[in-house]
């Protein structure tokens, strides 16, 4: 397993602004994510979470400010050190589970055939779909497709995972399974950045950034965010920050 150094900063976003035409999706946003933790980007739809993840992956370029991922500017050269799971399932539905995972392993530079086969098998077993490995993705349920999509993002063992709403559409049991797996990856030093708009996901993260209108309105651990606002739930803490209107770091 390729891991990142726990003393390092995995993601460094500095005063980044991004616009879609006249719409300002990110507004001078700054963020630092330490390596080896689960970091949640929490906020409503339109807060800028997906735009931020696309900037981190290198699919978008900031209009101003800088983005550093694993101490480099996002590029094709270092893309195999990042695992990206987009919001859509983004799978080849005619292909089998194994063919999908194997394809993403290949394009992420797992060129050794035997090593890749082992890695693909291990990953499919991890998402508990080994018995369905030869089934076309089109035959799978939404939750199963979500698992295959995750497998495609992690098969090459990247030190950084960028997951855009990975638990949407998952039943509670599967959601727990996903988070158990994320915790295991964290133990191996993998940094996980998860975007979500559900506070259920937020509780599983080591640190959180509450986002709204393209800005980070508060940052901290779930406990810090709750205690600083004297609220019982993260949902109430989020609403507290929204109503107070300022930026806060716990």
């Amino acid at each position, binding site marked *: 397993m390729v891991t990142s150094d726990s003393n390092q900063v995995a993601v460094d976003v500095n005063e980044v602004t991004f616009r879609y035409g006249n719409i300002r999706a990110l507004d001078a946003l700054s963020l630092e994510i330490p390596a080896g933790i689960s970091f949640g980007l929490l906020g409503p739809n339109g807060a800028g979470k997906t735009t931020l993840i696309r900037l981190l992956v290198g699919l978008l370029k900031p209009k101003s400010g800088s983005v550093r991922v694993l101490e480099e500017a996002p590029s*094709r050269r270092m893309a195999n050190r990042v695992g990206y799971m987009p919001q859509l399932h983004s799978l080849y539905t005619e*292909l089998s589970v194994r063919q999908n995972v194997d394809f993403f392993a290949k394009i992420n530079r797992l060129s050794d055939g035997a090593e890749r086969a082992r890695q693909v098998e291990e990953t499919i077993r991890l998402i508990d779909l080994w018995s369905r490995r030869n089934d076309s993705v089109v035959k799978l349920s939404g939750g199963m497709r979500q698992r295959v999509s995750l497998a495609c993002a992690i098969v090459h063992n990247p030190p950084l995972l960028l997951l855009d709403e990975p638990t949407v559409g998952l039943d509670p049991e599967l959601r727990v399974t996903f988070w158990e797996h994320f915790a295991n990856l964290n133990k191996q030093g993998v940094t996980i950045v998860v975007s979500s708009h559900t506070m259920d996901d937020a509780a599983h993260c080591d640190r959180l950034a509450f986002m709204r209108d393209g800005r980070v309105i508060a940052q901290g651990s779930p406990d810090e965010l709750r205690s600083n606002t004297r609220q019982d739930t993260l949902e109430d803490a989020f609403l507290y920050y929204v109503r107070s209107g300022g930026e806060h770091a716990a």
Partner: protein
Amino acid sequence: MPFCIMCGVGVNMLPRYALTIAGRVIRQLIRDRRTIVLIVAVPMVVMTLIGLSFPEGIVLDRIAPALLATMVLFFSFLLTGISFLRERSQGTMERLMASPVSRPDVVLGYLLGFFLFALAQTLIILLFTIYVLDVNYSGDLWQIFVFQIIIIAGAVNLGIFISTFARNEFQMVQFIPLILFPQVFLCGVIWPVEQMPEYLQWIGRFLPLKYGVDGLRGIMLTGESLVDVGFELLVLVGFTVATSVLATLTLRRGVGG
């Protein structure tokens, strides 16, 4: 790899992941049985209908080259354009563009992958036209096929390029008459180019199908060789290179941008 030999490009010169992408495209289409059946059956049905509508063999003999060139261009363009658009609307293109894969990898990978199916489809159309519809021709069969290969390569790249401008399948369908009809009417498929107004002839000179039709007519009707139709061949190669460069430059990761 056979495709590389045909393209005159060594494997080491190919972008790193083009063959991986081509392999995936081929596997994807092979697993879609209904599409495979349609790829084989539709050209035969269309050619049968055309054959039946021309009971006099001599007429069919004369229009066969233009029909073959048009069919090859149309089917190859359609197959690639729709499939490529689907890649973007499904979100898999975004995933590809976030990986170490480069734009030339994607375009070349698709070209190689779809080329195989377009090639099979073209071979079916050609053999069906000659052996089932009993069309007479003068030149060598292999030279006719090689000339068609060049038309396929250009049409596949054109499909990739044009799909960039469509955000959904409905928009892509609107591009089909826009791409096809001017070529059919201005390139001598239906009536001779010489009988059209000068300005229409001038427009026709910029359309690839004109060179496809002229070249195939040269080989099939007057028995010319590939060397004799070298100019038409060269223009079509130029068109293929130009569309592949344009497809690479305009490649977008998703339907939204």
